[in-house]
C-alpha cells in the first residue's frame, strides 16, 4: 500500500524535471526497482493512472527495470541470486555473504516531448 506514496513521489519528480525542460508532455518514465525494495509494479501502475490524470504525465508509459537481489560470498567470492528461504552461498554453503544489489528505488530518466 506504500505504492501510493511511492507513485506520488514519482509523479512529483517527473513533473518537476519536465517543467524545467519546458516539456509539453511526458511520454515515459524509466524506473529502476530492486527486489528488496518491496514495490509492486501493478500497484504503482494502478495509482499512476489515477494520479497522473490531468497532468502532462497522463498516459505516460511506466518502464520498470527490475533488479533481482544479488549477494556476494565472502568465503568463495561467488556472486548469486538468493532463494526465498535461504541466503547461503549455493557453491560453498557459507552464510558469510553480503547484499550487493536489490535495494534500488529510483527514477533513471524520463522521456518528454
Amino acid at each position, binding site marked *: *500500500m*506504500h505504492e501510493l*506514496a*511511492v507513485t506520488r*513521489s*514519482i509523479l*512529483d*519528480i*517527473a513533473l518537476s*524535471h*519536465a517543467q524545467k*525542460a519546458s*516539456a509539453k508532455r511526458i*511520454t515515459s518514465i524509466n*524506473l529502476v526497482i530492486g527486489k*528488496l*525494495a*518491496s*514495490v509492486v509494479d501493478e500497484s504503482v501502475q494502478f495509482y499512476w493512472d489515477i494520479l497522473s490524470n490531468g497532468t502532462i504525465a497522463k498516459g505516460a508509459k511506466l518502464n520498470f527495470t527490475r533488479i533481482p*537481489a544479488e*549477494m556476494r560470498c565472502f568465503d568463495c567470492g561467488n556472486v548469486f541470486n538468493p532463494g*526465498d*528461504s*535461504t*541466503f*547461503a552461498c549455493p557453491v560453498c554453503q557459507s*552464510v558469510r*555473504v*553480503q*547484499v550487493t544489489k*536489490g*535495494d534500488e*528505488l*529510483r*527514477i*533513471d*530518466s*524520463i*522521456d*518528454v*516531448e
Partner: protein
Amino acid sequence: MTQRIPIVENILSANDQMAQKNLEIFDHAGVFAINIMASPGAGKTTFIIKTLEALQRRLRMGVIEGDLATSIDAEKAAAAGLPAVQINTGGECHLDAVMIARAIPSLPLTELDLVIVENVGNLVCPANFKIGTHINILIASTPEGDDKPYKYPGMYRGIQALIINKIDLLPYVSFDMDYFRRGVEVLNPGVVTFPLSAKTGEGMDAWADWLVNIVKSRKPAEA
C-alpha cells in the same frame, strides 16, 4: 520530438530530505529519537510501556504514537505523565517524515532526552520511509517464525538495533534462533540484538542500559 531527460534520483528523496530536517530539529533540541517498527502482534505496545517504566527515572521521555490500531494510546502515555502526541495516519500503512514534522511541535523537545516513535505495525512499508530518527529499531517476536529476515529483507536492512521479543515462548514455538540470526547477519552484519521478554522482564535490563548509554553519549553535557 522525444527527448530523454536523465534524472537518477531516489524516488523517495523528498521524504528523505524532510527526514533530514526532522533529525536536525531533534539534534538542535538535544533530544535522541528512536523509531520502533514491528509487525502487528510482535508486542510493540507492551515493549514500549515496559521501556518507559524502566527508564522513567533515568531519562525524560516523550512519545509519538503512530499506530492507531494497537497503540499504547497517547492517552495512556500522557496518563503516566509523559508528553505524547497521537498521529492520525488516516489508515496509511507507514509513518513518513511529513507526519513526524507535523507532530514534533506538540512535544516539549528541549525538556526531553528521548523521543520514542511507535510506527505502524507492518513489516514492509515503514522500511522505505525514513522519518528522521537517530536509530531504527525492529521488534521481531518468536511466534512470528524464524523465516522473517528471509521474507522481509528490506525491513532488516535499515535498522540499528533488533529486539527479539517473547523469548519466554521459545519452548512452545518453532523458532530456530540460529537460522533466524544467520539471515539477520547477512542483511545487517553485526547489528546489536537483544533477545528479551517484555512480559516477564527477562533481558529488558540489557536493552534499557544500552539505550540509556547511547542517549547519554550522544547528548552534549548540559551547562
